[in-house]
């Protein structure tokens, strides 16, 4: 059964004292993109990371993928580093980007098959899995269509099918729905979330849209400058009626680059169901 949740579940993500420094090509000046970040993400949690432009969200995303090495500190998934143990995570980490990033010479089916080809599954299984995911995402009629024949929403669905096709432990989404119209984005967000839960994957969504973060995340992590952790919010602690207040508080945190007092107060309330679910792996 293809859509079964993984046995054993994904490993936890531990970030300790993470620092990433880039050197500017022209001036040679050091730019601190991430400065001593500590963060723990439990298995199967859905975490939304919000922050202003240039706060280090995308650098964190690249570090999570393993394309960049930390300058200092550690980022470990289970007991392995996504950069140092790059090949170990083949088929275990999948990404959805802001643009669909489909290969234009491949049909929807072949694009969805791509990660399965890379992990070396038999051809018949690749096809079956990719078809299943495309159908799940409402693209059963368009499996042979090339990307340029599809609308933006359909292309993003193919990109989501491509990410889910390997049933990854960790799903990373970088502003994955930000460029779509509101109705399509909301629809895709819901689908993404439902599929992530069904797959039993840990999902990390990077977004600048607070509505999206509140609507999707079990947790919202607010990054300040150089990925300084300004707030770590368990959304379930905030009843739906207080979501407007939560939005305001995050907005104020982002603008002032320091935690809004309203967010601290919420921490003292009872343990969140989402946190419990994450901790128990359910």
């Amino acid at each position, binding site marked *: 059964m293809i859509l079964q949740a993984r046995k054993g579940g994904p490993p936890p993500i531990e970030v300790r004292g993470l620092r990433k420094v880039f050197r500017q090509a022209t001036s040679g000046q050091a730019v601190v993109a991430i400065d001593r970040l500590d963060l723990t993400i439990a298995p199967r949690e859905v975490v939304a990371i919000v922050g202003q432009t240039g706060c280090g969200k995308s650098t964190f995303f690249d570090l999570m*993928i*393993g*394309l960049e090495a930390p300058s200092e500190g550690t980022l470990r998934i289970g007991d392995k580093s996504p950069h140092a143990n*790059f*090949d170990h*995570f*083949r*088929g275990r*980490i*999948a*990404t959805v*980007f802001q*643009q669909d*990033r489909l*290969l*234009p*010479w*491949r*049909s929807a089916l072949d694009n969805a098959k*791509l*990660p399965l*080809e*890379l992990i070396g599954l038999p051809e018949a299984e690749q096809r079956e899995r990719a078809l299943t995911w495309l159908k799940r995402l*409402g693209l059963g009629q*368009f499996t042979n*269509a*090339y990307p*340029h*024949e*599809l*609308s933006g*929403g*359909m292309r993003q669905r193919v990109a989501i099918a491509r990410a889910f096709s390997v049933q990854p432990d960790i799903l*990373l989404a970088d502003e994955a729905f930000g460029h779509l*119209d509101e*109705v*399509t984005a909301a629809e895709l967000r819901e689908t993404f979330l439902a599929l992530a839960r069904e797959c039993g994957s840990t999902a990390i969504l990077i977004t600048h849209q607070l509505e999206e973060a509140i609507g999707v995340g079990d947790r919202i992590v607010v990054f300040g400058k150089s990925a300084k952790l300004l707030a770590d919010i368990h959304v379930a602690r905030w009843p739906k009626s207080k979501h407007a207040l939560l939005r305001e508080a995050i907005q104020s945190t982002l603008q002032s680059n320091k935690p809004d007092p309203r967010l601290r107060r919420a921490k003292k309330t009872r343990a969140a169901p989402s946190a419990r679910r994450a901790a128990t792996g359910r």
Partner: protein
Amino acid sequence: MPHDEIRESAPVLTFPRQAFVSLLVFAIVWETLSHLAPYLGIPPFAIPSFVRIAQSLADITPIDIAVTLARVIAALIASFVLGVSLAMAMYRSDSLDKYLHPMIRILMAVPVVSWILFAVLWFPGVEFRICFVLVVVCGPVFLVDTLDAMRGVPRELRTMMQSFRPTTPQYFVKLMLPAIVPTIFTSWKVNISLAIRVVTIAELVGAVTGIGHQLSVAQELFSVADVFAWTLVLVTLLFLLEAVVARVETRMLRWRT
């Protein structure tokens, strides 16, 4: 899916009327001039009539066409393999690129005539001489085009591919090669035209077969009709080869239509 729609495109085929008219006008002017030549003080052999050219065309020896075609195709394949292989190596290794890039630029700046002279002085064998000239002229074009195309693969696609952690061969086979296919076809079209011109010049020196040799014979016999006929053959050959490449291109790049 209320927000989704399939986009469609339809190919448009039109008769090349303008091209046909311009060729017809040229043929009429040529034929008129060939008849008026004696009255204009032009030697009769300089502008032969189409009847005389047709006679020359009837005397064309297919073996010379086959030999030239074989030389062009063999040299183009050798240039392509060499050019693409070196381009891939240079893409992978910055230091190799730094060493080879200036050399490639110098090779590309050397005139074809110089290469032919070098070849005549260096190599006794005619076939190797012609192949050398073609490879040294066409190879760098394949190399530079391929390297540029690989560097032009969008960063977004490269990052996406890397995020799925391919092996190096998978990275090249599944991303780089398909991404550079359109450029490779353009490169083939440019090189076919280049090779047809270069092979003719190379065959002028020392070859005893091929279209270049026949052109040399025609020049010695002051036969403009023969030169015209062999030139027509060369142009037709070029168009045929381009048509073959265009057909393969259409098949392989059908995703673009």
